[in-house]
């Protein structure tokens, strides 16, 4: 078999092309220059020049979550590569498939403290699923094939490929992109569950009186939404999504409960407190969900479906673990699960829902963040793609942006990366050009990555930014209010005039100071065919409720004091 003589950089481009990659995000630099020289010859690969490598990593992540495809980001050696790290960490925690390509100093210079040299494979071990330092151009196609395979298989995650400059320049024979992954004996996703485990899980489900399902991102990754709904309906089990599982179960379904955990709805938390079986499908029992382990679902047996064996027993002991992908596991469970009615339990769930509603509180004049999110939800019919930052607005968005669209709620859950919202929204929008993408931001997080506004302008990505501007690190302020006796330390994040900033980037800027202008601003943003920044000046004294303080249990849950004062039944959900 004879092939073409190509340079290492071309090996990379050929590999990307063979993987069907049409969009990559990156920033060039010395060590990666040979790749950037060759990428010009591959017009099918659209390269988005972000203004910072963190932006490239988050954009690839947003793209990957919205589309379900592998996101690709590129950076040069040293600072470029390390700048990707927070993005890789974000993707790693939230199981997003990413292939990161980094330049490295030449092979003879490695280890000699060369200019812009960092041990990138060393630095990224804890934030990648796997990584490679490639020492020969002929290895590139195999490594790229493995990288894509590992990134997207089992529990997805980021894989980094580090390429020395002289490897990218090395000319060798390119004999084609491998069709299969042949030599990865150490990577063996368990996709199909063990029938014995399935049987044990089915038995627990059939004998439960008050079961509840916790649905995580694993459902979305395995595209098991239909099977999840079948299980819930057949056995009449209410479903609570995790933050990353929003969209895995229709939000308008009668069995749908709201989020649980630290800022979950009170009724969902109370349902879990009373349940006698919790079926976790595709999530890892984050500490923000369980609080104090000893008091979490105290009366419940645990069925845990997860493709990652290390997630089993990690935080909560599973009485019936099922290792496998969510779709295959649910498919195997379904025939063994009895049809039930559960009238009593479901009416108890409804009572809790009625007695502890999630409310949208309003203030005079200034809009509340909750109200703005509720109006965005209503004016987009719950059909928009939502990308959020991290903090109060994120929790309110999760509470109030109820949706039935898989993969449409995109947020940094595990790592809680502020600044994710700007580049990730661009990535999601570029992956889903026909969808309306709303980036719900805080003013503090927005300022962490706002340099990507230039990229968004260049790419004409019509993202609608809704900045919930309270001039503060809102969640930090909330914790200082509640747990540090209002000793406010370093939380003033007053930024630039965001309307002028929008104009400086050639975007439409709108400021909203009064609750009566919220709707018209949202509609104006929707009608504008380019990117928009809406600066909502929101109430600062609004706290996210309910709240279970970190490491505590539902017994310590604090509900909104304002709600408590309202007569029962007068507060709308």
């Amino acid at each position: 078999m004879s092939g073409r003589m190509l340079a290492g950089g071309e090996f990379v481009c050929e590999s990307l092309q063979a993987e069907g990659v049409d969009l990559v995000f990156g920033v060039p630099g010395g060590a990666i220059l040979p790749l950037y020289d060759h990428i010009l010859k591959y017009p099918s690969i659209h390269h988005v020049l972000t203004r910072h490598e963190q932006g490239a990593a988050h954009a690839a992540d947003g793209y990957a979550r919205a589309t379900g495809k592998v996101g690709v980001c590129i950076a040069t050696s040293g600072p470029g590569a390390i700048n990707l790290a927070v993005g890789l960490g974000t993707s790693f925690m939230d199981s997003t498939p990413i292939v990161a390509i980094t330049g490295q100093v030449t092979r003879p210079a490695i280890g000699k403290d060369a200019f812009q040299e960092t041990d990138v494979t060393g630095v990224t071990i804890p934030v990648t699923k796997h990584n490679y330092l490639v020492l020969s151009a002929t290895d590139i196609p195999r490594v790229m094939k493995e990288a894509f395979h590992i990134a997207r298989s089992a529990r997805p995650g980021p894989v980094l490929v580090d390429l020395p400059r002289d490897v990218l320049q090395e000319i060798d024979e390119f004999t084609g992109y491998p069709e299969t992954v042949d030599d990865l004996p150490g990577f063996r996703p368990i996709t199909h569950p063990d029938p014995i485990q399935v049987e044990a899980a089915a038995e627990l489900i059939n004998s439960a009186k008050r079961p509840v399902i916790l649905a995580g991102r694993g459902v979305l990754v395995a595209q098991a939404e239909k099977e999840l709904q079948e299980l819930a309906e057949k056995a009449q089990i209410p479903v609570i999504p995790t933050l990353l599982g929003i969209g895995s179960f229709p939000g308008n379904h009668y069995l749908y409960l709201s989020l649980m955990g630290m800022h979950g709805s009170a009724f969902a938390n109370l349902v879990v407190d009373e349940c006698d079986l919790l079926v976790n499908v595709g999530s890892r029992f984050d500490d923000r969900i369980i609080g104090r382990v000893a008091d979490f679902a105290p009366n419940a047996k645990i069925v845990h479906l997860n493709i990652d064996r290390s997630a089993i027993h990690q935080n909560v002991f599973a009485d019936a673990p099922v290792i496998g992908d969510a779709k295959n596991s649910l498919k195997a469970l379904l025939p063994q699960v009895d049809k039930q009615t559960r009238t009593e339990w479901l009416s108890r769930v409804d009572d809790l829902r009625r007695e502890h509603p999630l409310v949208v509180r309003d203030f005079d004049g200034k809009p509340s963040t909750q109200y703005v999110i509720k109006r965005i939800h209503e004016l987009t019919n719950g059909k928009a793609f939502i990308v959020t930052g991290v903090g109060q607005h994120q929790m309110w968005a999760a509470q109030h942006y109820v949706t039935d669209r898989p993969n449409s709620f995109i947020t940094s859950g595990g790592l809680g990366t502020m600044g994710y919202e700007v580049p990730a929204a661009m990535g999601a929008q570029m992956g889903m050009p026909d969808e309306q993408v709303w980036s719900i931001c805080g003013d503090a997080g927005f300022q962490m990555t706002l340099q990507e506004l230039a990229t968004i302008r260049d790419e004409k990505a019509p993202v609608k930014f809704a900045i919930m501007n309270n001039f503060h690190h809102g969640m930090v302020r909330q914790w200082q209010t509640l747990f540090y006796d209002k000793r406010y330390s370093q939380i003033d994040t007053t930024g630039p005039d965001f309307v002028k900033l929008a104009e400086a980037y050639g975007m439409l800027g709108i400021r909203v100071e009064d609750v009566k202008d919220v709707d018209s601003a949202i509609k104006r943003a929707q009608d504008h065919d380019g990117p928009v920044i809406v600066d909502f000046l929101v109430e600062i004294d609004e706290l996210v409720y309910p709240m279970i303080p970190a490491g505590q249990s539902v017994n310590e849950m604090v509900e909104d004091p304002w709600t408590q004062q309202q007569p029962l039944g007068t507060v709308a959900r």
Partner: protein
Amino acid sequence: MTMRRVISALVHDRPGVLNRVASMFRRRGFNIASLTVGHSEKPEFSRMTIVVDNVPESALWQVTSQLWNVVDVVEVMDITDEDYVARETALIKVRANQENRGHIVEILDLFRGAEVVSVSPSTVILEITGPTEQVESLLALLEPYGILELMRTGLVALTKDEEVPQDGEFRGPALVGAPSQRR
């Protein structure tokens, strides 16, 4: 409850693999008591025996599972509770002169797999190969003479199992753990 665990792993013979494995333990703050790595029966793989102290019982499953998740790790087995043989070698440099050298040799005669490998006017270097307890009892007996330098290899272990694990096999602690693992 914490305990000492013996883990056996088959890993790719590649640069960086040791780093990935060690990183897994470092992250959790588990101290590696010993880690021995060398060629295995397959040319592309090395075998590791890892002895870890202070692993809480509740973390056992996770330690082996997370190791198993490392792409360069092909097999993982927590062999602590299995039937296995384990040996280590120690080289011990002891102060010894004409008067007491004979005593030291007498002590050595009490141990299987122990011998003198080097002699100088004021020191001897002894070698012992055996289970950890044997190495440690020899060391205790030599202590009064003055141990100048000590080099222990750490444990190497193989299970007595007649069934050789297939590539990719995982034998961690039982999936449904002991009742003490329950909340």
